[in-house]
């Protein structure tokens, strides 16, 4: 399935609940709302035949941006799905029901960023020493209110959106 076809099928299925951006022919990003997160992963993995790769989280003042990488190997491009889990209690549904291989990366995101993955089979810290306090989240950043963050800036530049992990402006294919 070609890249354009993949984008179209995602847009057809999820409509306004996703925003699709193509940064280059090899990099496609899909910004999804929280409630369709698992369904989107399921659609990519089971219906469109993408490969599960790994995940990543980025802390922001207002929440945590969570992303998973789903490469389409035969079509030679990487598709990244992103969503935003709002603070103070960032919570998302776990995609381990779709790909059990996501177990550890979700545990790591919980441990580092306090992202609570609902329905995860075993959400224990994966890296932490037993002696570390349970309420210590190493990569979670506490930013004071007066501190300006990239998410607060809106200079109309598409690049600023990219830095802040915001969905792009414009319409889906």
């Amino acid at each position, binding site marked *: 399935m070609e890249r354009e076809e993949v984008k179209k099928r995602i847009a057809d299925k999820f409509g306004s609940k996703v925003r699709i951006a193509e*940064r*280059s022919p*090899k*990099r496609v990003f899909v910004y999804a709302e929280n409630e369709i997160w698992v369904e989107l992963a399921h659609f990519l993995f089971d219906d469109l035949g993408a*490969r*599960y*790769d*790994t995940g*990543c989280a*980025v802390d922001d003042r207002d929440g945590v941006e969570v992303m998973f*990488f789903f*490469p389409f*190997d*035969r079509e*030679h*491009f*990487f598709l*990244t799905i992103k969503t935003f889990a709002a603070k103070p209690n960032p919570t998302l549904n776990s995609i381990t029901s779709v*790909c*059990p*291989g*996501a*177990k*550890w*990366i979700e545990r790591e995101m919980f441990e580092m960023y306090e992202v609570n993955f609902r329905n995860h089979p075993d959400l224990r810290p*994966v*890296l*932490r*020493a037993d002696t570390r306090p349970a309420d210590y989240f*190493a*990569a979670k950043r506490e930013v004071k209110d007066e501190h300006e963050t*990239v998410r607060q800036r809106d200079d109309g530049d598409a*690049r*600023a959106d*990219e*830095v802040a992990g915001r969905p792009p402006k414009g319409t889906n294919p």
Partner: protein
Amino acid sequence: MVKKIPIGPFHPLLEEPEFFELHVDGERVVGIDITIGWSHRGIELLSEHKTWDQVPFLVERICGICSCSHPYAYVKAVEDLCRIEVPPRAQFIRCIVAELERLHSHLLWTGLAGHFLGYNTVFMWTWRFREPLLDVLEAVTGNRNHYAVMKPGGVRRDIPQEEIPNILKLLDELEKNNHMLTNAILDDPVIHARTKGVGVFNKDQCRLYGALGPTARSAGLDIDDRRDHPIDAYDKVSFNVILCEHGDVFDKAVVRQLENFESIKIIRQCLRMLEGTKPGEICTEIHEVPPGEGIGVYEAPRGEVLHYVRSNGGNMPIRHRVRAPSFNNILTNELSVLGNTVSDAGLITAAVDPCYSCTERVGIVDRASGERRIVTEADLVRLSQEKTEEIRKRFAALKGNG
């Protein structure tokens, strides 16, 4: 009676800490709990305090064996972010160094597996074959490991013309030796008995668990980033993706041995094409890294390495995510050791070529009585070697009778 056998946090076979708690019923493994993170060094956070140019030196220290793979994936992520092309000569040099690294990594794995099985001759052969490779890497990059050759935009050092005949000579020798080694391994009935059908992880499981590299290809999952997401010169060379179908320890060994031939093929092609490029043109200058994000992937010897970087336009990444292939592959042990014996468990966990290091003790806990005893690396290796010896004797007896 079900017992728990903790292996680690210092692994009996390899070089870094890891913790496997085996749940056994008699000799049979019925469950496993894996704990990682014993050598968590905070590389991602450190990286966010280094300039774009300094980060390769940091990430190549993630792994001594794959010390070209992490910088390679990182510089590709930065180049993806900056949307820049690398000069052709640098592309070939990158591929040559990367494939030399793959060769020495695969040979290292074969040697360790041989030792664990009780084939110390294999261990010594591979070390002997690997040594000239490291010499060539030293001549080309200045170091036997931690080559410091990758930089965003290109490479730091050119390959001197006078080194090329040495590399070609090494490849000829290595090809011959690898043939001998491959035949010796593939024809040995005892190795077959020890590794076939052991630690099976099938194709569907590989897909669900995101298994990578030789672990996935040994089960028939046809993925290889060098072909699927080609970077630099990989789309200019021809090579085969080696696939097997059973996903057991034997097939993992076969994939690695045969991949050595493909690496030799790739290096020869790159060296040939290097002649058509201008010496010294090895880097595109990057004056500024724009805001945005970049993804870099590279097929390391153990599987795909992924680096994700995010920039706000400053001189350091604001986020740098590193995913080594072992993060996905070690998790496959969750299923692959089930149903196997304790003497095979060490071999199975090592078969994914996990990137953690050595140590050297195992605790055994009797769940019913709570009794705990510690055994050493030597004990576990002995257990495995004894099993091989037993099979050898059985084969010898059969031969005698037949």
